[in-house]
C-alpha cells in the first residue's frame, strides 16, 4: 500500500512540470491556432536560464526567484519569436506555421549549444527541500511534495486568469472568432503576443521547476515534445482542465509502467492516447474542430497538369545525365546520388499525401523506417534475399499504413496530424525498447544487397530505377481518376461525397499507397547502408520529410522531388559547419516568410516571368 501511494505521489510530482508546459502549448493553440512545435525548446531554455540564475542567486530565496525569472525571460524570448517569426505567418496555411516553428527548434538548439556548451547540467537541489520524507515507510523526496503542492496554485491562477478577468474573456473570444474581436476594437495582435508570452513563460517555468529532478541537457526539447502533445491531445486542444487531467494520467501511468512493464514505458502514453481518441475523438475535454475555419488562404490552388514539352525535355536530359553518371563520376558521387534518389522517393510519397490529399501526416517516417525494418528483419531472421525483401518491404509498410490509417483517418486537421505522429512514435518505441528482436538502440547490421547488386554502380542503377519508377507512378496517379478523387476530397469533402466519391475510402487507399512507396525507399535505404537504426523512425525523420516537401513547394507536383534533391544534396555540405542547425533553421524561417511557394513554386514563377513557361491564365 505504501509503495502504491509513493508511486502515485511520484507521478503527481512528475505531472507538475508536464502540466505547466502542456497548458502553455494548449493556451497558445487555443488562441492562435498555431501548433507550436518549438514549445519543447522554450521548456529547454527555461531549464538552462533557470540553471544560470541559480548559480548566481543564493539560498532558498534565490532558488525560487530563479525559477520565476526563468519563466519571465523565456516569456520574453517567446515575444521576440512571436513578433519575428509567427506574425508574418498567422494567415498562412497550417503547414507553413508548423515548419516555421520547426525552424525555431533548430535555431534554439544551436544557440543553446553556443551559449551553454554541450555538457549536461545536473540540476541544483532545492535549498530546504533536499531530504526525503517517509510516507508509510516509503521514501518520498520533499521536493516532489513541494511540486505536488505547487501545481494546483499554478492551475488555479491560470483558471482564474482565463475565466474571471477581461483578458481571459478576450482570449476565449479570440479562440472562437479573432476577426470579430478585432472588429469590436480589440488589438488582437497584442492579445496574441500576450498569450504567446504566457504560454512560453509557462514552458520556461516548467523547465526550471524540474531542474532538481532532471537537470538540463540539449535533448530536452524533443524528449518532452511528444509527451506534451500527447497530454494536450488527450486533454483536448485548448482545454486547461484537460491538460491537467491528462498530465496526471500520463505521469502516473508512466511511473507504474516503469515498475510493472519496463519494456513499454515509451509506448504506453501513445497507447493511452490512441484509446482516448478512438472513444473521444477531440480529447477528454476538447470540442470539435470546425473544418475550414482556418483552411487554405491566399492564392487559389492551381490545377495540376501533366508536364509541358520544355519540362519534359529538362527531365529527360537530367535522366540521361544520371544514366551516364557512373562513366564520369566517382563512387562518392554515386553514393550521394543514391541517397538523394531514395530520399526523393520518400519525400515524393509524403508530398502525395500532403499536397494532393491534404493529409498532413507527421509520422511518415513510420513507413520509411517500417519498410527498412521489415527488410532488415527478413534478412536477419529468415535469410531472405534482397530481391524478395525489396518486394516485401513496401507490402509491410503499406500494410502498416493501412492499419494506422484506419484509426488516424477518423480524425482531421491537427488531431489527424497528432495521431499519425503518435503511431510513428509507437512504432519507434516498439523498435527501440524491444531490443531482443529489433536490436534496439544498436540497430540491425550486416544487411547487404545480393551479390549481383553489391557494386556501387549496380546498386546505383537499381536505386535509380526503383526510385524514379516510384516517383513516376506517384505522378501518374495524380493525373489518374484516383488522383482527381483524392484532390476532390481534399478541396471539398462534402461535394466529393455528393458526387459519389467515398472520400474516407479514397484517403485510406492513398494513405496505404503513400506508405508503400515510402516502404520502397526504406527498403533501398537499408540495403544501401547495410544497417538500420531506430532513428530512421524518429520524429526528426518525419520532420525532415515535411520540411523537404515544404521547401520544395507543397502546391507544385514536383515539390517533393525538388526539395528532396536540394536538401539531401545541401545537407552533405551544410553539415560540415559546426552550427548547421542554426543555418538550416534560419533558412527555413526565411523561406516560410519570404518564398512561401517553395523552390519549385518560386522557380515556376520566375520561369513564367521571363517567358520560359506559359502562365495559367494565358494558356
Amino acid at each position, binding site marked *: 500500500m505504501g509503495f502504491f501511494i509513493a508511486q502515485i505521489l511520484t507521478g503527481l510530482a512528475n505531472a507538475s512540470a508536464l502540466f505547466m508546459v502542456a497548458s502553455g502549448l494548449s493556451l497558445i493553440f487555443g488562441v492562435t491556432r498555431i501548433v507550436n512545435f518549438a514549445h519543447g525548446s522554450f521548456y529547454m531554455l527555461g531549464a538552462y536560464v533557470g540553471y544560470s540564475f541559480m548559480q548566481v542567486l543564493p539560498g532558498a530565496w534565490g532558488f525560487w526567484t530563479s525559477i520565476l525569472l526563468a519563466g519571465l525571460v523565456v516569456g520574453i524570448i517567446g515575444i521576440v519569436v512571436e513578433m519575428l517569426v509567427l506574425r508574418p505567418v498567422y494567415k498562412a496555411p497550417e503547414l507553413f506555421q508548423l515548419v516555421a516553428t520547426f525552424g525555431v527548434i533548430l535555431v534554439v538548439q544551436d544557440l543553446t549549444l553556443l551559449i551553454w556548451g554541450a555538457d549536461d547540467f545536473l540540476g541544483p537541489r532545492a535549498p530546504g527541500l533536499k531530504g526525503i520524507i517517509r510516507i508509510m515507510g516509503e521514501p518520498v523526496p520533499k521536493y516532489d511534495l513541494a511540486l505536488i503542492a505547487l501545481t494546483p496554485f499554478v492551475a488555479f491562477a491560470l483558471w482564474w486568469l482565463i475565466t474571471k478577468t*477581461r483578458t481571459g*474573456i478576450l482570449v476565449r473570444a479570440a479562440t472562437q472568432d479573432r*476577426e*470579430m474581436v*478585432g472588429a469590436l476594437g480589440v488589438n488582437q495582435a497584442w492579445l496574441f503576443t500576450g498569450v504567446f508570452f504566457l504560454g512560453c513563460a509557462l514552458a520556461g517555468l516548467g523547465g526550471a521547476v524540474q531542474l532538481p529532478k532532471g537537470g538540463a541537457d540539449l535533448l530536452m526539447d524533443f524528449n518532452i515534445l511528444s509527451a506534451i502533445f500527447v497530454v494536450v491531445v488527450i486533454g483536448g486542444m485548448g482545454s486547461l482542465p484537460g491538460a491537467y487531467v491528462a498530465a496526471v494520467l500520463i505521469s502516473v501511468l508512466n511511473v507504474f509502467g516503469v515498475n510493472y512493464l519496463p519494456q513499454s514505458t515509451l509506448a504506453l502514453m501513445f497507447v493511452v492516447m490512441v484509446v482516448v481518441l478512438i472513444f473521444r475523438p477531440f480529447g477528454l475535454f476538447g470540442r470539435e474542430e470546425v473544418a475550414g475555419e482556418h483552411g487554405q488562404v491566399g492564392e487559389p490552388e492551381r490545377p495540376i497538369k501533366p508536364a509541358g514539352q520544355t519540362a519534359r525535355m529538362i527531365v529527360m536530359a537530367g535522366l540521361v545525365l544520371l544514366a551516364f553518371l557512373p562513366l564520369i563520376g566517382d563512387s562518392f558521387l554515386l553514393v550521394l546520388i543514391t541517397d538523394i534518389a531514395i530520399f526523393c522517393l520518400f519525400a515524393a510519397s509524403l508530398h502525395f499525401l500532403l499536397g494532393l490529399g491534404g493529409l498532413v501526416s507527421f509520422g511518415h517516417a513510420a513507413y520509411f523506417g517500417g519498410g527498412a525494418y521489415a527488410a532488415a528483419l527478413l534478412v536477419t531472421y529468415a535469410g531472405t534475399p534482397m530481391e524478395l525483401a525489396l518486394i516485401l518491404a513496401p507490402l509491410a509498410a503499406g500494410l502498416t499504413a493501412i492499419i494506422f490509417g484506419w484509426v488516424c483517418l477518423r480524425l482531421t486537421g491537427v488531431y489527424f496530424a497528432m495521431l499519425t505522429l503518435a503511431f510513428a512514435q509507437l512504432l519507434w518505441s516498439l523498435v527501440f525498447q524491444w531490443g531482443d528482436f529489433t536490436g534496439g538502440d544498436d540497430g540491425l547490421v550486416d544487411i547487404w544487397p545480393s551479390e549481383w547488386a553489391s557494386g556501387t554502380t549496380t546498386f546505383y542503377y537499381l536505386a535509380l530505377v526503383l526510385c524514379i519508377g516510384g516517383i513516376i507512378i506517384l505522378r501518374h496517379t495524380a493525373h489518374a481518376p484516383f488522383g482527381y478523387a483524392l484532390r476532390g476530397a481534399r478541396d471539398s469533402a462534402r461535394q466529393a461525397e455528393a458526387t459519389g466519391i467515398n472520400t474516407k475510402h479514397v484517403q485510406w487507399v492513398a494513405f496505404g499507397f503513400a506508405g508503400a512507396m515510402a516502404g520502397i525507399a526504406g527498403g533501398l535505404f537499408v540495403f544501401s547502408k547495410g544497417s538500420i537504426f531506430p532513428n530512421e523512425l524518429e520524429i526528426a525523420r518525419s520532420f525532415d520529410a515535411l520540411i523537404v516537401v515544404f521547401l520544395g513547394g507543397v502546391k507544385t507536383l514536383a515539390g517533393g522531388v525538388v526539395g528532396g534533391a536540394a536538401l539531401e544534396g545541401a545537407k552533405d555540405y551544410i553539415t560540415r559547419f559546426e552550427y548547421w542547425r542554426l543555418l538550416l533553421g534560419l533558412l527555413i524561417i526565411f523561406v516560410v516568410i519570404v518564398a512561401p511557394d517553395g523552390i519549385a513554386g518560386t522557380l515556376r514563377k520566375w520561369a513564367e516571368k521571363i517567358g520560359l513557361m506559359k502562365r495559367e491564365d494565358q494558356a
Partner: protein
Amino acid sequence: MLEIKGINSFYGKAHVLNDLSFDVARGQVVALLGRNGAGKTTTMKSVMQLVVPQTGSVTFQDIDITRMPPHKVAKMGLGYVPEERRIFTDLTVMENLEVGRQPEREGTVKWSEDMLFDMFPNLAERRTNRGKELSGGEQQMLTIARTLMGNPSLILLDEPSEGIAPVIVEEMARVILRLKKDGLTVLLSEQNLHFAQAVADRVVIVESGTAKYKGTLAELNAQPDVRDTYLSV
C-alpha cells in the same frame, strides 16, 4: 460623417465593389438596398477595413480610415454588427458584452449593461446563459448590444432582419428608431424593403457593386420603376 469615395474591393480575383460612392450624414439612418450578391456585405466590410479596398477611400469624421486596422476603426467609434451575428457561442451573455466594452467617447451615449438589458429585456433574463443557448432573435439582439457596449457614434447593421421571426423584426425596427433618437447614425443593409421603409431616411441601391440610386425614401417611393428594376419586391 461617413464618406465612401470610389472604392473597389476584391475577393481574390472577383471584383465585388466597382467605384462605389455614397455618404452618410450625421444622425441619419441610411439603408443600403440591393439583391443578394449586389455587394452590400462587402460594402460593410470595406467600411470596417475587414476587406481592404484596393482603390478609393473611406473617410469617417473627416479622417481617412482606408487601410487602418479594423480594431482602430472600431476604436474611432464605428460599430459593426455582422450579418452572420458571430456572437461568441462559448461565452455567456455578460461575457459577450464585456468583449465589446470600450471606454467612453465624447458626444455619444455611454452604454452600460443595465441600459442594454432595459432595451433588450429578453437578454436580461439570459445574462448567464452561453451564446449557443440563445435563440436566433436573441443572438441578433446580443450582437447589437455587444456593439453598443463600444459606445459607437455610427453603427453598421448588416441585414438585421434576416432569418428572424416577424415579431423580432418589428422589435428590431423599434430599436433602430430608438438609437436614432439617441443621436446614433446608422448604416444598414437590407433586402427587405418594408423594413427599410419603416426606419430609413435615405436609401442607396447597389447593384453589381455600384450605387445605382441614391435619394430619400419619399423620392424612391415616387419612382416605382427604379424599385422594380433593382429590387425584387
